[in-house]
């Protein structure tokens, strides 16, 4: 008899857990997501860094240290299996005069955590490695196992693979209450009906404290939203570090990063601002926050690109748990409720390892004899991108499918075929409302210099045609493109 598992939240944590559990015969898995699409919480707005683990204190945060290191290794396989764009440039934690002592602590931490090859790089060598660095730098702690990944594609890829392996995705489904009877989890009450479950896994990110309280568990556990703002630059700026650069961390944050994203854009961020507990929807940027980043970026680089080269600024919220401690526990009272809550940094890095850890909790706490599936597909291929191909390859693609020959997004060279495929894939995993944002994250259309000014309406037209809905009803991110036809207000009607 299969155990029915409901995972609340399809961000990086929830989706990794879904994938790992889907490897076993024992579970019938439903992934519950309240937004229109997967990965729209913290997973969408973060530094995109895969950390080595040398910044985690194994005494204070043993779980974080262990799972971060494991996750770093697992991502190498997962990214290949799932065709997730990733690079492994390594990182340089820059230190200036008075910071050297603090920075050297990380060598010590690296030793204690068993993180390979972490060492100090002196100034001269450093400036040869990255000529664009601030020449006032004293040195850096170099950790070669740092990666930079595409966080949206990661969640999407994992969910596609999980669904391919029989996981069911329920979007636009918000958990309102958790039913417990006889000390046992029975299921979750949502806006779309009751989802029966024997095991409920709380991976609800910034709302994970609320979900925990719904199960009557950990009443004192409170998440503080921590906002991080970021600035993204045009691809063609001259300042593009090869390695991930960051300032020496403080108590609060891993420091400010300056890195080249997997898509080739210089990005600086994040800030670290604690917000009141009920400010969980505050993903707004502030002039103070952005100015702070410009200031900190001056510490990293010899010179900064001009302000006219900014193509986007955004903010994300991280779920900060009390004491920085991850709450990963399988409860026997109520039986079947598992918290994977307050997964702050290095959450993204650790996610595949967290998923395995949770699997192991299920095995031990709930006495489940795990049976591996005979047929489990580890592989998933991403959308074929015209922009990555040579002219000859583009020609071949077009001859097989003429829709590759119609370019919709000029800045990123995205074709109609890719957009239609993105829409197909969204349908395939069970997304009910196709959004332009979802297409953007799957194709990169709108990521470029014009930020969608040229192509947004063209993509909306394709969705309108495909989904057979009027153009004004196509959803951008959370709202429709228009409020009606052009005469709706004059008619005085709806």
């Amino acid at each position: 008899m299969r155990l029915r598992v409901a995972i609340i939240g399809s961000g990086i944590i929830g989706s990794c857990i879904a994938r790992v559990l889907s490897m076993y015969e024992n579970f019938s898995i439903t992934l519950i997501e309240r937004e229109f699409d997967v990965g729209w919480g913290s997973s969408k707005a973060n530094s995109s860094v895969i950390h080595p683990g040398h910044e985690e204190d194994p005494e204070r945060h043993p779980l974080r240290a262990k799972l971060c290191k494991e996750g770093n290794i697992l991502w190498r396989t997962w990214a290949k299996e799932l065709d997730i764009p990733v690079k492994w440039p390594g990182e340089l934690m820059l230190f200036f005069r008075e910071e050297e002592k603090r920075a050297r602590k990380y060598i010590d931490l690296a030793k204690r955590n068993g993180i390979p090859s972490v060492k100090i790089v002196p100034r001269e060598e450093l400036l040869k490695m990255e000529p664009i660095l601030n020449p006032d730098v004293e040195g850096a702690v170099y950790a070669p196992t740092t990666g930079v990944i595409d966080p949206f594609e990661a969640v999407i890829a994992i969910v596609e693979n999980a669904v391919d392996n029989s996981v069911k995705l329920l979007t636009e489904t918000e958990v309102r209450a958790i039913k417990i009877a006889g000390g046992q989890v029975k299921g979750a009450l949502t806006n779309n009906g009751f989802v029966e479950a024997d095991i409920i896994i709380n991976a609800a990110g910034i709302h994970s404290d609320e979900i925990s309280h719904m199960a009557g568990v950990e009443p004192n556990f409170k998440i503080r939203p921590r906002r991080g703002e970021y600035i993204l630059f045009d691809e063609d700026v001259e300042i593009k570090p090869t390695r991930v650069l960051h300032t020496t961390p403080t108590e609060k944050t891993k420091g400010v990063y300056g890195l080249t994203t997997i898509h080739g854009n210089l990005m600086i961020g994040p800030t670290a601002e604690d917000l009141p507990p009920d400010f969980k929807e505050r993903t707004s940027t502030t002039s103070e926050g952005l100015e702070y980043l410009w200031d900190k970026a001056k510490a990293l680089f010899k010179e900064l690109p001009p302000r006219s080269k900014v193509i986007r600024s955004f903010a994300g919220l991280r779920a900060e748990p009390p004491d920085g401690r991850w709450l990963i526990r399988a409860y026997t009272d109520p039986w079947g409720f598992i918290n994977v809550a307050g997964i702050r940094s290095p959450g993204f890095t650790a996610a595949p390892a967290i998923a395995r850890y949770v699997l192991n909790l299920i095995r031990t706490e709930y006495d489940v004899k795990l049976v591996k599936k005979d047929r489990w597909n580890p592989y998933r291929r991403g959308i074929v991108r015209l922009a990555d191909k040579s002219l000859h390859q583009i020609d071949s693609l077009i001859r097989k499918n003429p829709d590759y020959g119609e370019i919709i997004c000029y800045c990123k060279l995205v074709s109609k075929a890719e957009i239609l495929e993105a829409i197909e894939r969204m349908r395939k995993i069970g997304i009910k409302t196709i959004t332009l944002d979802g297409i953007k994250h799957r194709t990169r259309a709108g990521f470029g210099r014009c930020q969608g000014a040229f192509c947004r309406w063209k993509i909306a037209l394709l969705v309108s045609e495909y989904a057979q809905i009027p153009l004004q009803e196509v959803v951008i991110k959370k709202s429709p493109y228009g409020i009606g036809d052009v005469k709706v207000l004059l008619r005085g009607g709806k």
Partner: protein
Amino acid sequence: MERYPKYDVIIIGGGPAGIAAAIRSKELGMKSILIESREILGGVPLQCIHPGFGIHYFKEDLTGTEFISKLLKKMEDIGVRYLTRAHVHSIEVRSHNEKIINVITSEGVKRLETKTLIYAAGARERHIFETNIVGDRPDGIYTAGEAQTLMDIYGIMPGKQVVVVGSGDVGLIMARRFALEGAKVVAVIEMMPYPGGLLRNVVQCLRDYDIPLYLSHVVKKVSGRRRVEKVTVSRVDESLRPIKGTEFELRCDTLILATGLIPNIDILERIGVIIDPATRGPVVNEFLETTVPGVFAAGNALVINDSVDNVVNQGELAAEGAHIFIQNDGMPSTGWKPVKKGRNIRSAVPHYISGMRDVTFYARVRAPERMVEVRVPEVHFKRRLHSVRPAEMITFKLRKELLASLKSPKVTLEVVRLCEK
């Protein structure tokens, strides 16, 4: 992939500049082809339903739609070769008179060889991240051109309570469109102390509809969870910095950004064309040839225009330049004289002249002034103008007879105030 016989000129961009260049190229007997990414030719005027087009070219005050229809008819009558749904992937410059244009079409990749190239792919709109507006990133934010496409081509209403950022003609025209179709236009916000567009547009778009215009103001922040809910507006000082304590909120569900256009020239930058930071377009000589020999630019891709008549003239001029280039196997070598920007001149095109031919200048001032003279002192050229404003491009021609008197190694464009009577 197919490789095609050599063209004399390939025109990239099927808006008014490109179409005019294509017509002129055909008239001059050049083997030419026009390439357009969209499935229809016409460009921006296709969605401009307001008049003000073709006053000089067709001697009529036409709507953008009427203008482009007539221009396309002229193009059809003369028989111009063109490809639509054809997007330029890249340009390879093999030599001064050999360029390969790689074009993506639904039939495959076409590699077109040409001697010269006229780049007329227009401009893009400045988006919100190119302003200093912070806050949420809700739905309900549109660029003015996007809103215009939605309303006046696809017949959909973007929103009902609108704040427009930017009082250039585009912003003013869109404010009126929204008001006419029954929306409440809460305000037009303008950073400068004077309106960006023509005074007649301030009257017929704002005053006629009681739409408040806030000069010396900026939108600092936009707020909204799913859709825009309000904006925070602030007064600015002479350095255009927000003044603390002057903030107020305006409730709205739609934010229209009409903060300016930028030449769409990624592809030119990739072949090493030198850019003028004042126009954000290519540096050109009097034939509108860029710093890459045989590559010409016209229309909004060259410099942001406000009159389609100028756009069309630039297209024709570029075609004429291409023709001379082909006849001489290159632009005749000459001592190009730089054009210097004098008093109150923010930008001027072309950047270099030979002094041996008629030259048409396209210039913009930094600040508005009345009762002025545009001068080129080196040749004693003076043109009196009633008023000048940044939003209105100044054009004038220097005849080659006048330029013959040029002894200086440069020319200067300047605007001088005349004494009040």
